[in-house]
């Protein structure tokens, strides 16, 4: 991971911590702070489906409720979130 990748990921982590109030690794009890390169948690403590439709299908299958984040930018691109 390059220095800029690291900086971008740290930014995303800080941004999502402010928005969602979740700290990476806090819920899972792990020591990991920097997510992996294709981490579907995007640096948060929960997994994110890349569309509300996919999340809804998974919610129906699992009997859970649905959480949908509307945002400007790309959650999958730390530099553009």
């Amino acid at each position, binding site marked *: 991971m390059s220095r*800029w990748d690291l*900086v971008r990921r740290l930014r995303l982590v800080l941004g999502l911590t*402010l*928005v*969602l*109030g*979740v*700290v990476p690794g*806090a*819920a*899972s009890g792990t020591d990991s702070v920097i997510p992996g390169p294709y981490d579907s948690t995007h640096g*948060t*403590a*929960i*997994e*994110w*489906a*890349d*569309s*509300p*439709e*996919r*999340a*809804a299908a*998974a*919610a*129906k299958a*699992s009997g*859970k*409720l*649905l*959480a*949908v*984040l*509307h*945002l*400007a*930018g*790309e*959650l999958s691109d730390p*530099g*553009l979130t």
Partner: protein
Amino acid sequence: MGLYLGANFVAGYRRVGTFTAIRAKDSDEIVAKIGGNVALYFCTPDGRVLAAVAGVASRERVLEEARRAVSIAERAEAIGGDPESALRAAAAEAYADVDLPRHRRHAGDLGVDLVRWLTAKPGPPLEELGRRVWEEALGQRWSDAGIEIRVLSGCGPGCRR
């Protein structure tokens, strides 16, 4: 909070707006962002909004609304009968109990607007409420256009040449 969300919700995201990113001239670094916002909705699996948070919020606010959504869903199940009617009744009960002056102190005007909208029409479809929140409450343009990236001319703040 992550444990609570993970235990009760499946999460997904959608880009519904855009912003302008300012990139440094000779690097990939984004040095500034103009515009943009976020909103988070807690819904039934078929997309009926039970609770929501608009704009940047504390973890306590997010957790409060997540708990409200779970509570409404449980109450709707207890009411039974027609799921649509039960959901509306449970949501109407939940929002009737909200103390608006107190809610305004920690959720702000945006939070009060959301309570009013969810009281007037309990369990609205996400497509309907989401657009209204994005445009009316957050003042954003609903758009799936890509992000505009402008390259900073000159060498930027703090630069000495």
